[in-house]
């Protein structure tokens, strides 16, 4: 297979990149491990930020974003993001996204945590779903090729330049090559390392970051994982921030409030985590208008009923903070290019340095669209000056063959749970040296014993266990880099909170960058 631009992933970042890349007149392929509309983007409920309101300004949006980032974001990139936001919304509106409206026909906006104004445009609580599907329809309109059920294995470089990637065709376990002039990694975040303590989709396993890192890309700010304050206690299913934005309370066993619900996510998550040592914590929406709930939170209402068997208009919702968003990622420059020529990245897997230590709710969907456009431009102008190179499947195939040979009795799923619990406890909302070190040791031990986690299922046809094992390998690799980064940052800043270094330290107001096993 051969395409000018190869885009790995099919979330909103990938689809918008594809649409803008197509406008440049190049051949474009989207390759994803799922079907295209199943990406995690579908789960975003709260909204997408843009300063459109009468009292709101782009300056305030910039200010809120920078404040939330704890001096770790790049001011220029944040300016660009916020300035491009109204245009991005206009574009989404022009391709048919069904945004909720105000009575006088403007795109409706609501307030999310950390924002001074109602700034999040939404489509009830289906914002991500409706954006993703509308983009998908446009991708069909532009007749862009999509390859489903292909799992990224390796990003291939030659003389420091990217020349394509190899994939596992999940249908038959064969390795396939895609040769390309530029490659865009848009594979989403890595918060699913926290397993059942994460709000994320099953597929957010950080595959793209690991493939890029192995190819020689710099990863940065991995230690910054945002915890969402309100996930359902048993299932970690997200209850959108708009519930608090609209006046929902956080209460303890006695029904007493214990914090300001509208503080940034890191602060609220910590307050809840501390409170959970003393009592259960609940989200209280009983005093909110029923009509409001039916209109704006229909999904939450359904999910609370299903998973916790409660009627949230009548009862308290048991909650806990859960790992939600990966601020860190593949480091890119203003053209969304990595340190490897021709290798680009966009979306949650990339670090454009706009979130810093803490992402502002609603800025993530925004970056998918804004940087989706930028990355397409960057990747296209690079590709135009390149030639195709041939690549082979040999190395990737050998890795797969080796996995089929593994023998040993350790259960993959037990190990996944173990890592998830370890991460929630030791690399979670509160961190300290000894616990981080303990996690690192445990992970090293797992890494050394990976070949003992053998496939029970050795068939070639749609072998899901194989894919889950590959994901686990990626998670173990990335988990170690996260812990190393967390150990390195001896301070507390935003989502990274060290019980042994409580203060923010100027010395650390720069990204943590890791490259081939060394910090830069």
């Amino acid at each position: 297979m051969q395409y000018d631009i190869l885009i790995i992933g099919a979330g909103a970042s990938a689809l918008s990149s594809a649409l803008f890349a197509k406008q440049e007149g190049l051949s474009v392929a989207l390759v994803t491990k799922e079907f295209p509309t199943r990406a995690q983007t579908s789960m975003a409920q709260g909204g997408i930020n843009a300063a459109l309101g009468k009292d709101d300004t782009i300056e305030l949006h910039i200010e809120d974003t920078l404040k939330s980032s704890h001096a770790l974001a790049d001011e220029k990139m944040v300016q660009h993001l916020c300035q491009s936001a109204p245009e991005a919304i206009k574009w989404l509106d022009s391709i048919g996204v069904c945004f909720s409206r105000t009575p006088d026909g403007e795109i409706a906006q609501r307030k999310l945590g950390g924002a001074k104004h109602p700034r999040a445009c939404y489509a009830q609580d289906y914002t991500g779903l409706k954006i993703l599907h509308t983009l998908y329809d446009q991708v069909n309109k532009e007749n862009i090729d999509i390859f489903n059920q292909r799992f990224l294995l390796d990003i291939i470089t030659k003389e420091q330049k990217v020349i394509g990637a190899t994939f596992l065709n999940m249908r038959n376990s064969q390795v396939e090559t895609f040769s390309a002039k530029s490659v865009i990694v848009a594979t989403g975040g890595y918060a699913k390392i926290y397993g059942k303590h994460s709000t994320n989709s099953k597929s957010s396993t950080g595959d793209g970051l690991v493939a890029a890192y192995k190819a020689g890309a710099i990863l940065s700010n991995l230690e910054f994982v945002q915890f969402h304050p309100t996930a359902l206690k048993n299932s970690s299913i997200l209850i959108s921030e708009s519930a608090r934005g609209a006046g929902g309370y956080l209460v303890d066993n006695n029904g007493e409030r214990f914090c300001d619900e509208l503080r940034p996510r890191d602060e609220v998550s910590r307050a809840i985590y501390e409170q959970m040592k003393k009592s259960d914590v609940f989200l209280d929406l009983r005093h909110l208008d029923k009509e409001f709930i039916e209109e704006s939170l229909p999904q939450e209402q359904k999910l609370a009923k299903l998973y916790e068997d409660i009627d949230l208009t009548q009862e308290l919702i048991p909650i806990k903070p859960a790992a939600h968003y990966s601020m860190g990622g593949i480091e890119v420059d203003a053209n969304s290019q990595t340190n490897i020529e021709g290798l680009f990245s966009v979306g949650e897997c990339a670090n454009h340095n706009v979130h810093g230590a803490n992402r502002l709710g609603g800025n993530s969907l925004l970056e998918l669209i804004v940087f989706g456009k930028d990355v397409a431009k960057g990747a296209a102008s690079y590709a135009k000056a390149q030639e195709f190179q041939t690549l082979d499947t040999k190395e990737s195939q050998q890795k797969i063959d080796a996995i089929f040979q593994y023998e040993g009795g350790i259960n993959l799923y037990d190990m996944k749970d173990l890592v998830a619990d370890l991460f929630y406890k030791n690399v979670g909302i509160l961190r300290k040296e000894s616990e981080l070190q303990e996690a690192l040791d445990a992970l090293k031990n797992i890494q050394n014993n990976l070949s003992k986690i053998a496939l029970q299922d050795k068939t070639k046809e749609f072998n899901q266990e194989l894919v889950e094992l590959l994901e686990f390998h990626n998670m173990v690799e990335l988990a170690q880099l996260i812990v190393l980064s967390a150990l390195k940052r001896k301070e507390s800043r935003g989502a990274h909170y060290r019980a042994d270094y409580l203060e923010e330290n100027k010395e650390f107001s720069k990204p943590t960058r890791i490259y081939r096993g060394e910090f830069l």
Partner: protein
Amino acid sequence: MKLKIQRYIKEKEFNTLIEYDVEKKVTTLLEALEYIKQTKDSSLAFESGCRSGVCGSCSVQVDGKATLACSHKLQEDAVVVEPLKNMPLIRDLVVDMTQAYQTTKKAQAWLHLLDKETKITDEDEHINRVQSDCILCGSCYSACPVFAVNKNFLGPFALTRSWKYVADKREAQPAVDVLQTDGIWDCTLCNECTMVCPQEISSKADIEKLRSKSAMMGYSDPNFAANFGGFELSF
């Protein structure tokens, strides 16, 4: 709790209904499937993603009715779980939706030309709100008797998606032309699609709306013409 699951692995010539015990307390069918995979048989294949009913990955047939595994509350014993119907089977509970996905493309379900002057009001947004809630789970294709016999039939979700755009005030060039063959007139209005949709979408109702829109634009039922139009030839 007991579950019967239809297994199918082609290369092993394995095609049987197997009963599993689920000893753990689980809420949803998806949790039960995960439990079985993780503790009893890791070769069991099924799809999932968000576990909250929006990614559309986990639709299966439960006791003969298409439903999302993540939203299906397990209550009693001996539930029979099978893959979706009317789509090629890949393995166990996983079907190939490629062809089904192609239907939205065939139906040209997208915004063709933006009417730049139009302003969408709150009311306008309600017109196609429920249609834009579709998660492409494929349940309706599993239920549709016409799709079962005619693989060229555009099918319920594609037609719902078409109606979403046709009904959109921003659309300056509503595309109903492509819906006339193997499309809106082939539906029997049996309503099976509505009965299974987890998002409370009625493709049947959307098809009826597309029919009247088409009629307004001068199209008519070709089956009607085929049945009664024969004598035109004799003139």
